[in-house]
Every structure is written in C-alpha cells, then in structure tokens.
C-alpha cells in the first residue's frame, strides 16, 4: 500500500487515529484494533518528521494500541466474576472527546468569520472628561498585601519551579549537559553495520556507556529502519532482536538532528 501523503499533516496521534477510523468507515465504538494498529504502525514507519518529541507521542499511541491488541488476544480470565472492561473503552472515550472538540472548533471558526464583520471604535473621551481620570491609588491596591504574604507567594513560585524539575533525571547532571548527536550515532551504527552485516540488538545496546546513549542508539535504529537501511527480525517474543544491515553504503544524515 502506498502512502499518498505525509504524516506531518496530522496534529497528533489522536488525529491520525481518527483519520484511520474515518478512512476505514469504522464505528468509533467498535474499533477493529488489529487492523487499525497495523495501519497505524505503517504510517509511523513512513513518518518523515525529524521532530523527536512529536515522534515519541505517536509512538506512545502505537504502544497503547499494541497493548490493547495484546489484551484482546489474551484469553478471558474465567475466575473473575465481574465483567471486565473492554480494553478499548478508554481509547474510545478519548477519541470521542477529541472528535467533539474538533467539531466544535469548526463551529467556532464559522462564528469567527461572522464576528469579524463588525467594527468597533477607539475610545474618544473628550478632553474635558479625560482630565478627570483618577490615578491608581497604590496604597489601596496593596491594602491587604503584607511583606510576609509577598514572601509566601515567592516561595510558592519557587516551589512550582522546583516541581517542574524531574529529580531523577536531573541527577544525570553531567550526562545531560553532554550533547549526544543523533546523526553521529546513526553514522556509528552504520559503520558498525557495514563491518558486521548482522548483529544483535541487545549486544549493541550493551556497548553503550549510559542511558542517554542507549536511548539515542534506539532512536538511531528506528531512523535506519524508517529509511530502509536495516531490517530487523525476532524469532520469538522477548528474544533478542537481530538487526541486519541491508544497504551497501552509509546514508547521509542531517547534522541538525541533535538530542540534548
């Protein structure tokens, strides 16, 4: 099946999922998860985007779909009396909600067109009246604000800022500051691939110095799969993945793919 348009056209993972459901004319309440998951993965494989943040959001959705798919393939637990919730339920709810806002935003756009046809007027206060304008009374403004209160407010601002910092990841201080260049890593993998032709995924990861390098290596493999430089195979579930380098030369990569 040929992909006739670019994935970048989608706003996000839900948008793509909605499109697939639309295209297949499927009832949103009854998504054939296997079919949709396969199509979804196919789209992701053809993704042209280099935005890793965006890419990861699509991947999360793909993982969700696969998770649901696997749950549905598992035999029902007979020992449990209560009726188990359909694993698709939550996804369906999210999709319906998203669909509703998409619909509303079109309505809003329509209203905006109408509203744009009216004109307002600048305020034209006559001079005599303008002079009556009162100054803002600062002491009234600050009437119930004490220094202690101001101090408390600042503390809560600082607290909020601290909360935003992930204490676990922030401990990789020295590593984080070191920029790992995705394109460099991809080239390394390619050189390794030309030399070794076929190699173990696990083995490759074990050669990495730290977590960040492992992540970048993993992303590099994904990227190489996407452009068809490598193919992967796995004999059984949870077994090591075998990577085979099928290209005959190293593909050039944009230097701008940098992971901080």
């Amino acid at each position, binding site marked *: 099946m040929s992909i006739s348009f670019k994935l970048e056209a989608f*706003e*996000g*993972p*839900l*948008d793509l999922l909605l499109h697939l459901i639309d295209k*297949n*004319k*499927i*009832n*949103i*309440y*009854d998504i*054939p*998860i*296997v*079919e949709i998951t396969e199509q979804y993965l196919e789209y992701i494989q053809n993704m042209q985007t280099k935005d890793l*943040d*965006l890419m990861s*959001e699509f991947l999360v*959705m793909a993982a969700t779909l696969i998770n649901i798919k696997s749950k*549905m393939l598992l035999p029902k637990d007979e020992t449990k009396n209560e009726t188990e919730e359909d694993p698709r339920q939550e996804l369906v709810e*999210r999709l319906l*909600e*998203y*669909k*509703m*806002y*998409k*619909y*509303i*935003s*079109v*309505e*809003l*756009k329509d*209203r*905006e067109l*109408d*509203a*744009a*046809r*009216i*004109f*307002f*007027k*600048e*305020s*034209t*206060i*006559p001079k005599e*009246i303008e002079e009556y304008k009162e100054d803002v009374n600062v002491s009234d403004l600050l009437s119930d604000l004490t220094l202690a209160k101001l101090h408390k407010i600042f503390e*809560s601002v600082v*607290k*909020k800022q601290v*909360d*935003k910092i992930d204490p676990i990841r922030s401990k990789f201080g020295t590593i984080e500051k070191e920029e790992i260049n995705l394109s460099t890593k991809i080239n390394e993998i390619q050189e390794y691939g030309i030399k070794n032709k076929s190699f173990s995924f696990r083995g490759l990861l074990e050669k990495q110095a730290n977590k960040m390098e492992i992540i970048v290596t993993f992303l590099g493999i994904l990227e190489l799969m996407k452009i068809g430089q490598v193919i992967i195979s796995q004999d059984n579930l949870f077994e090591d993945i075998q990577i085979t380098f099928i290209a005959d030369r190293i593909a050039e990569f944009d230097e701008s793919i940098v992971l901080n």
Partner: protein
Amino acid sequence: MELKRLEAVIEAILFTMGEAVELERIAAAIDHDEETTKKIIRNMMDQYESEERGIKIIELESAFQMCTKQEMYESIIKIAHIPKKHVLTDVLLETLSIIAYKQPITKQEIEAIRGVKCDHAVNKLVEYNLACEIGRLDAPGRPILFGTTEEFLRSFGIQSLEDLPVVHPEKVEDFKLEAEEEIQLKLDI
C-alpha cells in the same frame, strides 16, 4: 430621569468609551440598580436591532459594547482600515475550544485531551489575548489554570460562555448511526 434621557446617556457612554463597559459602571453612572439598567440596555439592543441602524450594542458576559452591524461590512471596508486579525490555525482553534468548554483547565489537562504538547498553542492564545491565566490549581506544582477572555467572546460573537456552540445530541447520534451502517461492510475482530 425619564427613560428616553437614560437611553441617551447610555448611548453617549458606550459611544465615548468604545470598549466594553461593565454593567456595574453603567448602572452607577445613570444612578440606577443593575437589574433596571440591564433591562434598559436590553431594550435598547432590541431597538437598534429592529430599526434600520448602522450600529448596535452587544453583550459580553456582564459588559456592553457598541459596534457596527454585520451587514455594514461591505460599505465600511471601502473606508476603514481593517485591524489585522490573527490567523488561528486548527491547532489553536482546537486548543481554544477545549479551554472554552473546560475552563478553568491546566495545560496538562489540555494535553491529555489532545494527545500532544500544547505549550506553544496556549502561549499563542495568551499572546493573542484569547485565553488568560485565571488562577492556580490546588495540586502539586500548583499548575496554572487557563480560561477565555472578553476578547474571545468578542472575536467569536459569543454573548457569554453559556452561549458556546454545542454538539447537538442528534448530531452525535448521527455520527454513530452513520458509522454503524458503514461497519456492516467491515469485518470486526
């Protein structure tokens, strides 16, 4: 003051100020209670609407503003300079719809609905004065709560948040029926 005179004063106030003026302030200026003042203004709104006039009064939550009628647009653009409008992309519109219906809402909640990061979209909406901070959620990190502005109401011709477009239940039913008919052709697992 007799009614005609009060109407004249309100007309003068709304004309002079140009911007939206809170009911509270108008009531104080004409020395009447808010309930009465609202009745007078609503009555004026009907008059402007029914008579062949070029201007009208719109209501924005509890404020009122004078503006031209929509059908005057073609003639006015021959003279007036049209203020440049921000182009709202689909992403911004979707984000704005979510804020409008779910306010007060945090960025995290918006992200949960859209499935993608929304920092950029929310910041743009704040910059365009269509959304604004309306407080902090009492939860870890005290995340900022967002809501829509008066400018939002004005830009979309909405009187109050109760006036937001709704998805009619029949419409939702339609979506479902459509899909159900079509699914007959498809294999399900």
